[in-house]
C-alpha cells in the first residue's frame, strides 16, 4: 500500500504544469480536445438530431414509432437482444470452463488449449461465419454432407438460424471471457481456497462456493463485453441471417440505406436504439469492474492449487480440444481447402486442386486490387496517425496538470460504446453535406477507423506510460528541455513498445473492419472486408476463401512481427 502511495505521489509531482496562458501546451491540449469532440461527439449529435426530425425537418418521434411498432423492426430489436444474450451466456459458461481447465487443473495439453486466447488474432467472427457456411449450410455444408454419407436424414445442422448466429459469435468472442477469467483465476489469493479446504469444505464445495464467487465479477464483466460485441456484430448476422430472413439491428440499419430514397430517420432511430443497448451493457460492465475486485496478488507468491483430475483430465482435454476444433481447426482447414479446390464436395480428387481462385481474386476481380491498396493505406497510415494521437492523449492526461485532462480521459474511452454501424451512420450524416463532403473519399473510412479505435490505442499507450517512472521526464525538464522536446525525445521513445504493440493491433483491426466500412465505402474506395462481403453476395465461396486466407496470413505475419518486437500479449479489439 505504501509503495502505491509513493508511486502515486511521484506521479503527481512528475506532472507538467502550464505556467501561463501563453504556454503552447494549453493550446495543444485544447486542440486535441476539440479534435476528439469533432470526431466523437459531433456524429453522435447529428445521429440523434436526424432520428427526431421528420422529412420536413420538424421535431417528431415518428421514426421511433416506426422502429418500435413495425413488426420487421421490433423483431430486429428482439433478435439483437436474443443473439447478444445467447452469445454472452454461452461464451461466459464455455470461457469460464476453459479458463478453469487451463489455469486450475492438471489437464494435459494446457499450453495447447491456451491457443484459444489468440483465436481473435487469427480470425474475425465474420470470416468464421463464412467458414461455417461451408461446414454447416443445410445443402452443401461439409458436416451435413458427411451426415448424409453416414446415413443421416435431413441436415445435421442449419447454420442459417438464430442458433447458428449465436453459435458462431460465441465461438469467436469467447476468448475475451477466457482471457479475463483466466487472469482472475491466476491472480486470486490462493490462501482463500486453502482457508476453505482447511475449514472442511471439499474441493468441489471450495470451487463452487469460493473460487466461482471470487471470479464472478470477471465472468460478468467479460460476459457483458461479449453481449455488447455481439449486439454490434454486423458480418455474422448479415451472412448467416439474411438467407433465412433473420434481421438484427445492424443489418436493419444497413438495409435502411439501401432503400430508395434512403430512410435516414428510421436508420437513425434504430442506431440510437442499438447505441443505448451497447451503452447500457458497457455501463453495467464498468460498474462491475469498478466495484471491489476480489482478486488480489497473494501473499507469499504462492501459486493457486491445481485440481488433480485423475482419469477425468482426458475427458476435460477432449472437451477443450473440441473448442479448438470448432473455432480454429475445422474452419481454417475448410477455408484453406476450399480456396484451392475446384468443387466444394466431400469427395477429394487430386485434379480438383487449383490455385486458380488466388489468381482470379488477385488479377481478374476488379475490386480486390483497390481493396488491398486501400486496406494497406488505411492500415499503415491510419494506425500510425491513431497511435500518435493516442500517445499525445496519454501524455496529456497522465503527465500534465492541465485543467481538462479528465475530459480527455472520458472522451478517449467513449467510442467503446459506438457500434461500428452506428458510428458509420453518424459520420455519413455528418460528412455528407457541405461545407466538408468526405463521403466518396477514403478519408471518411479513415476518420471512422481512427475514431473507433482511439480507446484501444490509448489503452496501449497509457498502460506503458504508467510503468515509466516520471523521473525520466523530470530529468529532461530539469535539464532545460521544454515539454515538446521532452515528449519527442523522452516520452515517445520510452513509449515505443506500447506504440508498436498498439500499432500492430490497430493495423490488423483496420485491415479487417467491416461493420463501419459497409456503410462508408464508395465505388473505388472498397476495403478488403467489403470485397469479401461483395464476393459473398455473389456466392463465390472459393474466391472468398482465397481472399480470407490471405487476410488471415497477413494478420498473423504482422502480429508475429509485433510480438517478436515487443512481447505483445494483449487481446485485440476489432
Amino acid at each position, binding site marked *: 500500500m505504501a509503495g502505491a502511495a509513493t508511486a502515486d505521489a511521484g506521479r503527481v509531482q512528475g506532472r507538467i504544469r502550464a505556467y501561463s496562458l501563453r504556454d503552447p501546451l494549453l493550446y495543444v491540449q485544447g486542440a486535441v480536445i476539440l479534435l476528439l469532440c469533432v470526431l466523437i461527439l459531433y456524429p453522435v449529435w447529428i445521429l440523434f438530431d436526424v432520428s427526431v426530425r421528420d422529412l420536413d425537418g420538424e421535431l417528431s418521434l415518428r421514426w421511433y414509432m416506426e422502429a418500435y411498432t413495425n413488426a420487421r423492426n421490433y423483431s430486429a430489436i428482439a433478435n439483437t437482444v436474443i443473439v447478444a444474450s445467447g452469445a454472452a451466456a454461452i461464451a461466459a459458461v464455455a470461457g469460464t470452463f476453459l479458463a478453469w481447465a487451463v489455469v486450475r487443473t492438471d489437464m494435459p495439453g494446457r499450453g495447447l488449449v491456451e491457443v484459444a486466447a489468440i483465436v481473435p488474432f487469427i480470425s474475425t467472427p465474420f470470416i468464421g461465419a463464412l467458414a461455417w457456411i461451408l461446414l454447416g449450410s443445410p445443402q452443401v455444408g461439409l458436416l451435413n454432407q458427411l451426415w448424409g454419407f453416414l446415413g443421416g436424414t435431413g441436415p445435421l445442422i442449419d447454420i442459417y438460424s438464430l442458433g447458428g448466429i449465436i453459435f458462431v459469435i460465441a465461438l469467436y468472442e469467447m476468448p475475451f471471457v477466457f482471457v479475463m477469467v483466466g487472469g482472475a483465476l491466476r491472480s486470486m489469493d490462493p490462501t482463500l481456497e*486453502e482457508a476453505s*479446504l*482447511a*475449514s472442511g*469444505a471439499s474441493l468441489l464445495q*471450495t470451487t463452487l462456493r469460493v473460487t466461482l464467487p471470487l471470479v464472478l465479477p470477471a465472468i460478468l464483466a467479460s460476459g457483458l463485453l461479449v453481449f455488447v460485441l455481439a449486439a454490434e456484430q454486423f458480418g455474422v448476422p448479415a451472412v448467416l441471417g439474411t438467407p433465412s430472413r433473420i434481421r438484427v439491428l445492424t443489418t436493419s440499419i444497413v438495409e435502411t440505406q439501401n432503400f430508395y430514397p434512403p430512410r435516414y430517420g428510421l436508420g437513425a432511430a434504430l442506431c440510437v436504439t442499438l447505441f443505448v443497448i451497447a451503452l447500457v451493457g458497457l455501463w453495467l460492465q464498468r460498474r462491475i469492474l469498478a466495484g471491489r475486485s476480489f482478486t488480489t496478488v497473494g*501473499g507469499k507468491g504462492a501459486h493457486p492449487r491445481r485440481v488433480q483430475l485423475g482419469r477425468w483430465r482426458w475427458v476435460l482435454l477432449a472437451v477443450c480440444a473440441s473448442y479448438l476444433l470448432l473455432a480454429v481447426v475445422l474452419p481454417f482447414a475448410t477455408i484453406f481447402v476450399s480456396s484451392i479446390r475446384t468443387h466444394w464436395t466431400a469427395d477429394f480428387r487430386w485434379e480438383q486442386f487449383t490455385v486458380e481462385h488466388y489468381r482470379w481474386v488477385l488479377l481478374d476481380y476488379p475490386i480486390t486490387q483497390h481493396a488491398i491498396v486501400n486496406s494497406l493505406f488505411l492500415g499503415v497510415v491510419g494506425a500510425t496517425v491513431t497511435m500518435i494521437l493516442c500517445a499525445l492523449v496519454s501524455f496529456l492526461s497522465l503527465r500534465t496538470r492541465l485543467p481538462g485532462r479528465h475530459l480527455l480521459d472520458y472522451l478517449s474511452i467513449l467510442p467503446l460504446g459506438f457500434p461500428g454501424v452506428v458510428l458509420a451512420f453518424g459520420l455519413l450524416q455528418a460528412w455528407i453535406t457541405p461545407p466538408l463532403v468526405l463521403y466518396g473519399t477514403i478519408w471518411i473510412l479513415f476518420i471512422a477507423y481512427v475514431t473507433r479505435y482511439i480507446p484501444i490505442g490509448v489503452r496501449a499507450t497509457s498502460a506503458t506510460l504508467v510503468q515509466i517512472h516520471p523521473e525520466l521526464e523530470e530529468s529532461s525538464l530539469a535539464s532545460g528541455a521544454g515539454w515538446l522536446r521532452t515528449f519527442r525525445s523522452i516520452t515517445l521513445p520510452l513509449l515505443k513498445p506500447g506504440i508498436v504493440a498498439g500499432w500492430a493491433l490497430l493495423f490488423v483491426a483496420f485491415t479487417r473492419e467491416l461493420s463501419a466500412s459497409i456503410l462508408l465505402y464508395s465505388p473505388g474506395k472498397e476495403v478488403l472486408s467489403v470485397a469479401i462481403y461483395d464476393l459473398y453476395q455473389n456466392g463465390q465461396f472459393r474466391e472468398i476463401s482465397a481472399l480470407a486466407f490471405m487476410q488471415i496470413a497477413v494478420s498473423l505475419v504482422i502480429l508475429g512481427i509485433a510480438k517478436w518486437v515487443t512481447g505483445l500479449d494483449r487481446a485485440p479489439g476489432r
Partner: protein
Amino acid sequence: MSGPSSIEVRLTGALGTFALAAEFEAPATGIVALVGPSGCGKTTILRCVAGLLRLHGSLRVRGEVWQDDARGIFLPPHARPIGYVFQEPSLFPHLSVRGNLEFGLRRVPSAERRLRLEDVADLLGVSGFLDRDPASLSGGQRQRVAIARALLASPRLLLMDEPLASLDRASKREILPYLEHLRATLDIPTLYVSHSPDEVARLADHLVSIGAGSVRASGPIAEMLTRMDLAREQGADAEAVVDATVTGHDAEFELTALAFSGGTFLVTRTAHPIGQRVRLRVLARDASLTLEHQTGTSILNIFPAVVDEVVTDGASQTVRLDVGGTPLLARITRKSGATLGIEPGRPVHVQVKAVALVD
C-alpha cells in the same frame, strides 16, 4: 509421550532447492510453537500438517493417522479436523463477517459442533461487526475474524501461521490478549508458527526449534528457553519463563504474591484472582547473582539457586540456574563470574530486578 495425547511429525522431501527433514513429537495440549529463522521450513511443516502440501512421511495427531506413506494413507485437508489461520487474514471477500464465520461452522455436522457462533464471536470480540464487509475492517479485526472462523470448524488441532506477522504493533497488542484468553479458556491444541521470541514467550507451552529444514530441539518452554545452545543465540535478550500461581494480595504495599516451585515473586498488585495461573518472563540481564542472601537491598525477589551451567561469550557469561526446579538465566560479566567462582554446582542467590507478567 507417544499415543493419544501427542502430535507426531515425520516429514522428508524437497521443495525446489529447499530440503526438509523434520521429525518431532509434541504434546497435543496447549500451544506448541514452531520457531526458527525465516525460510527454515516452519510454514512448510504447518502446511503439511494441514494437508495443503504433501511431503513424504507420516503424521499422527492424537492417535489418528493423517498421513502414512508406508501404508498409503493421506487425508485431504478438508477431511482433517483442523482450523487454519494464515499470516494474511484471508477472509472471503464475497461474504460478510457472519458469512465467513458460518462457512467454517457449516462444514461441521451439528452433532460434532463444540462451539457456538455467538460464543466464539464474543470470545474474539467480533460480535459488533458480524454484518460488516471484511474489506471495511482493520487488520487486527480481520485477523480476529479469521481466528474465529478457524475455531468454528471445531478443530481438534488449530494451526496458526504467524498470525500476527502481518499486523502493525498496535494490532498485535490488540490480538495477543485474545490468543492468551483462548489458551486459557478453550482446550484446543495449537501448532503456532512464529519467529517472534516475544510471542513465543507469552504464548507457548512447548517449543520446537527448527533450523535449515530440520528440527534442532523440542521440549517444554521453560526448559527450551534456558537451554544454553539456544539461549546463547539470544545473547543479552535471553530470557526464561516462570509459570506461577497467584497466592495473595498485599493491600498495604499494593503487591501481589506469585508462588512458583522455587519461591514466591512479589510484583506490583494485579487484578488476578487468587489461584489463577500466570506466566512471568525474566530477562537474563535483569537477574544478578550474590553468594550470600543480601539484606540491604531494594530488590524484593531474591531466591536461593544452584548454578547449572555456564557459557562464556566474550566479556559476558550466561548462567543457567536451578531455582527449586525452575530454570532461570542470569547474564553477568566474566569478571564477576571469576570473582564469585561461578561454576556448575555452586549455590548462589539470584536477585531478580524486574519481571514482566504475561497474563
